């Protein structure tokens, strides 16, 4: 079902420390085009840092990041050029509070892609419609529910037509009743063939959508596999303990 060519994103031996704390201790992973990778792990395990290294919001101390085979953590490559090809969705939505939903989605199109206003608006309205919020175009973030804000944030990232989408615990800050609407949009995206790296503890989503699951702990990848199998028969004690915890 998936075109197994060179990886869309590849991470090699990436290390990152904040002060004395080594958050990533040599991470190797890859995502192929059209694949959905889910990363799970206890808090402080380095998941978010890994995600932020991929789009260079955090510069790794050592190791390499490749996007479609191009090394991107290179002094000769502008991080802005990398980031506009990688969409990111944050735990706390981070919509621009002074802009309407429509303007939030348009901003990257007009400023980064330098489209004119009319064209940007056309694309932005289309993206809002894709996440089911065409009627909320003129609402400010504070007037939207958490689920709606997160869907606008997804539309904002999608508008730039990214090669990969990164999701950093996209449903953790949501009230339970809004989680499914965000997961639905993400599932639709995955089915359309979007390459995705998702940090999330939504087991249902991981089982039904993810091609691969990574379990991280203490800055290393402890276990990799097909989600169903990893959940059903974890190979390590740490993974077993973690599954026990999130299943309650």
């Amino acid at each position, binding site marked *: 079902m998936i075109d197994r060519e060179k990886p869309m994103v590849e991470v090699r031996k990436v290390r990152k420390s904040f002060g004395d704390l080594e958050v990533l201790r040599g991470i190797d992973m890859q995502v192929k085009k059209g694949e959905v990778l889910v990363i799970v792990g206890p808090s402080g395990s380095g998941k978010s840092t890994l995600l932020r290294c991929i789009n260079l919001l955090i510069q790794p101390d050592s190791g390499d990041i490749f996007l479609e085979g191009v090394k991107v953590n290179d002094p000769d490559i502008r991080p802005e050029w990398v980031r*506009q090809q990688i969409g990111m969705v944050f735990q706390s939505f981070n919509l621009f509070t002074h802009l309407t939903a429509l303007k939030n989605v348009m901003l990257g199109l007009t400023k980064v892609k330098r489209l004119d206003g009319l064209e940007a608006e056309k694309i932005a309205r289309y993206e809002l419609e894709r996440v089911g919020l065409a009627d909320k175009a003129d609402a*400010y973030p504070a007037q939207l529910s958490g689920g709606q804000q997160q869907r606008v944030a997804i539309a904002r990232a999608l508008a730039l037509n990214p090669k990969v989408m990164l999701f950093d615990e996209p449903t953790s800050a949501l009230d339970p009743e809004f989680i499914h609407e965000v997961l639905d949009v993400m599932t639709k995206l995955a089915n359309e063939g979007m390459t995705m790296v998702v940090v999330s503890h939504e087991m249902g989503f991981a089982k039904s959508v993810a091609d691969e699951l990574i379990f991280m702990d203490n800055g290393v990848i402890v276990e990799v596999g097909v989600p169903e199998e990893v959940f059903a028969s974890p190979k390590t004690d740490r993974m077993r303990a973690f599954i026990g915890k999130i299943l309650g």
Partner: protein
Amino acid sequence: MRDPGRDSGWRRVWDEPLFKTGVGIVGLLAVVGLLLTALNDIGEISFDFMASHWSFLLRYALTSLEATVISFAVGFGLAIPMGLVRAFGPGMIRRGGLARGVASPLYAIVTGYAEVIRGTPALVQIFLIQFWVTSTFQGVPGISLWAGIAALSVNTTGYQTEVFRAGFQSVGQGQIEAAKSIGMRPTQTFASITFPQGLRLITLPLANEWIALFKASSLLWLIAVQELLWGMDYIGTKLNHPIDAFILGSFFYLAILIPLSRAVTFLERVKRIPGLGVAEPQRRALFAARFARLDRV
């Protein structure tokens, strides 16, 4: 939404914020008017004198206004980059390398400037700059006014720098991270996110600074600038009507400052964005909604 059927007509009129404000202003004017009339009757003050001299003070009031507007604008222009250095300098210094080399001296200079300006009396700054300017540009006509404007600019720049620093720092890290994540460059992030959001957060302190600056312009009297206080003193002592002159002059300050601060409050309310800056009191929602259509022009 209130059910209109349940309220009597008078009740609804009374609940209009505009009506209450009107009643308040009329009431205040009546009290002040009665007081002044009483003083006029016993001969302490003279309405006749005020009526025949207000136009004399007008041109000096305009000089005060001119000095304030120019120095505020200069301060605004300088405080934006200086506030940026104050807000983001430490972060760049921590990053090390070239960023540190550039940011360290800039941060030290700007911080020193803001501390010295805010830590010394405005009058001392005015005297110092006046001495320097008038000795450098001896004999240039109107030089004392320009020396005064320079001094007020130097002063307000220090205060506005700290106002902008606070505004820029109040913009959430998540907003900056989101802007970065869609590929915006630092300058674009500043122009599209940090500046517009920061400006909204500091509207009130900026208005306060304008008010303080306008009143501080009266200090220029002490370096022989012919501004409003000078005019008040001139007619007060020359014509031996000091109390009338100072009451009349005070009305000029009020006539300029009260409408201005009302206008800022009004703008804040009309241009308000949900979830950003001052919260909107429920009672005022109706009022704001009425003027919201102005927003769409």
